[in-house]
């Protein structure tokens, strides 16, 4: 079992991960260690493989791992079905949340919460308790109660959909949350609400990986580690200052620096 320097088991340990879609390899050997209590940002230009990494870790069927490993709390993730990963506490906030016509948010999240509870050997939550939980968590992202009675994401604005992702995260309370471009398409007010929500959910016993193209989300959420993903490889890792440097100098700067070094 892998452990970190403090002797604790990391939440996520990715080793030399190669991932293909169809015959095309997108990730060419990614290494990443995420410990409890940490927030990581993975930055990179479009097409660098950021979303592939996030989606592969939650088991999206069309992504094939050709080499490498991913452990979650010491257990190999890659053989698990998407729902098995979710039930163990892995969550993805989607870049493009899906609309579920006719499925009410209340009903959907109740079923999800019960699936997670079942995994832990607990009984289904009573409708009343769930109602209370949902209402309380909705406040974290300032979600209108009216939206909870509607079909999931149907007719929602882009900002409402992203807020709904964070609401789902708040309700399901994952140990490891991957947030795929959660800041994209948000105006400044919505960005602040979403970022506030994420900050409220940070705890010493969970971790988050923010996948983002831009630095602007990081004005609100200070990451512990920043990684730059370029052409399917993590080419540089550092602290929050790396994000600022990237914002200032652009991805071409990193690309040139990497090319010069090799």
């Amino acid at each position, binding site marked *: 079992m892998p452990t970190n320097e403090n002797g604790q088991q990391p939440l996520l340990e990715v080793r030399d991960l190669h991932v293909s879609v169809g015959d095309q390899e997108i990730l060419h050997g990614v290494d990443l260690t995420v410990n409890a209590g940490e927030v990581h940002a993975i930055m990179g230009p479009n097409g660098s493989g950021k979303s592939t990494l996030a989606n592969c870790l*939650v*088991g*999206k*069927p069309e992504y094939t791992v050709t080499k490498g490993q991913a452990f979650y709390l010491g257990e190999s993730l890659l053989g698990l*079905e*998407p*729902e098995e*990963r*979710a*039930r163990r506490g892995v*969550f*993805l906030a*989607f870049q493009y*949340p*899906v609309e*579920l*016509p*006719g*499925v009410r948010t209340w*009903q*959907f*999240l109740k*079923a*999800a919460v019960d*699936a*997670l509870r079942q*995994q832990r050997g607990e009984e289904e939550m009573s409708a009343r308790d769930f109602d209370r939980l949902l209402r309380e968590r909705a406040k974290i992202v300032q979600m209108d109660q009216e939206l909870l009675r509607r*079909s999931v994401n149907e007719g929602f604005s882009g900002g409402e959909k992203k807020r709904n992702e964070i609401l*789902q995260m708040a309700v*399901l309370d994952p140990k490891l949350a991957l947030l795929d471009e959660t800041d994209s398409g948000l105006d400044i007010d919505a960005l602040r609400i979403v970022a506030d929500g994420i900050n409220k959910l940070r705890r010493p016993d969970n971790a988050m990986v923010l996948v983002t193209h831009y630095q602007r989300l990081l004005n609100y959420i200070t990451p512990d580690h920043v990684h730059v993903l370029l052409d399917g490889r993590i080419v540089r890792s550092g602290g929050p200052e790396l994000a600022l440097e990237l914002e200032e100098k652009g991805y071409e700067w990193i690309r040139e620096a990497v090319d010069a070094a090799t």
Partner: protein
Amino acid sequence: MTQVLEKYSGYLAQYEELEASWEANRLPWLAQLRGHAWSRFADLGMPTARRGNEKWKYTNVGPIANGSFGHPLGLDPNDYIAPDLIAQAAPWQEEWINLVFLDGRFSSSLSTVSLSNGVYAGGVYAGGLGGIPAEHANVFRQHLGQHALAEEDGFTALNTAFLHDGLFVHVPEGAPAPALLNLVFATTDRHQPRVTYPRVLVVAGPGTQLTLSESYVSLTQEPGFTNAVTEIVLEENSQVRHCRLLLENQQAFHVGTSRVYLAQNSSFNSTSFAKGAALGRSDLHCLLDGPGASCTLNGLYLTTGTQHMDNFINIEHAKPHGTSRLLYKGILDGHSRAVFGGTVLVRKDAQHTNAHQTDKNLLLSEDAEIDSKPSLFIYADDVICGHGATAGHIDAETLFYMRSRGLDLATASRILVQAFAGEIIEKVEPEPLRDYLEKLYSGAVSAPGISLGGTP
């Protein structure tokens, strides 16, 4: 004609037997209507030739035409059947006016007791064809067989040729809306295989309101053939809500023909549910024959195994300012097949018509098949009309989204199928009927016969 009769000699013998009975000759004008219908059937037969026959292009009624079904006249509809059996097989509320037919015969002992012989508060008549009170008899004679024409269609001709029992509903002008009229047509195992000819005529008088449910159910697993005809007349400013439930067993053949006539500013709202029958055909035609008439037609069909379900829905706008909305949805599993056909016809005089028809299908299996062919024929120039049809499997992206929240494939699929059906079910009123349908469909999509593997 001789050839046709040779093929249908079984029906001829049954027809002659009926003609010889006293019951068939109670009303001379009805005997005449029947005689005419028989001669039409002798000409038309059943629509077994499908070449060039658009109405029957995708449905082969050969199994019905080649089948042999008894038509015993002697069955007593008041033979004892536990009322609970009916109430379990069909929607049922004590406060409704429940009208039960057993093996095609009106059973007064299982039906709600009225003030006197089918008369309800406010002078509403809802009862069998024998003993219709004088003040309703003219309306009965005026409309029976005038909307569902034996001329045009072999099945309607056959039903009319055997017309001797049935249900007549008349809400005269000024009468209050009666309680929901719950019509249950049940087949038993007393004589199988058997053909029944349910026949309903409903007349909603000017300005009246009426809610009606028709259920076709089996209290047996034996095969049989139901050939049903319903005529509904909406006079000026009347409103009718209608629900039709096809819940027969998986051996049954069912051909249901409904003809709806809408006068000025009347409004017809119908929901059709088709779940049971080996081979089912639901043929609904609405004629909007007065200015400002409107109809809303919703439908839901669920097929599994080797079932074949055909919905043939036609809306005819004959006068201006009419509105029609059609939304039918299908859920298909196994090797089943469904057909959605039908037209919206806008005649030259029907200016300012607003019509829309949509058919959506969810295929749960690679082997299920849908033929969906909605079409428009527009002869007026100032109209708003649209139509569309979709068919697809459960979306893989959607399933992945749900699974990423911890729901397994079967649960996610079931939630999606229920949501798909829910769009139709939630339109049903009143609430007890909606609740019944919700339970029926949530049970049906959880049943082991339904493959909810989806396409991961």
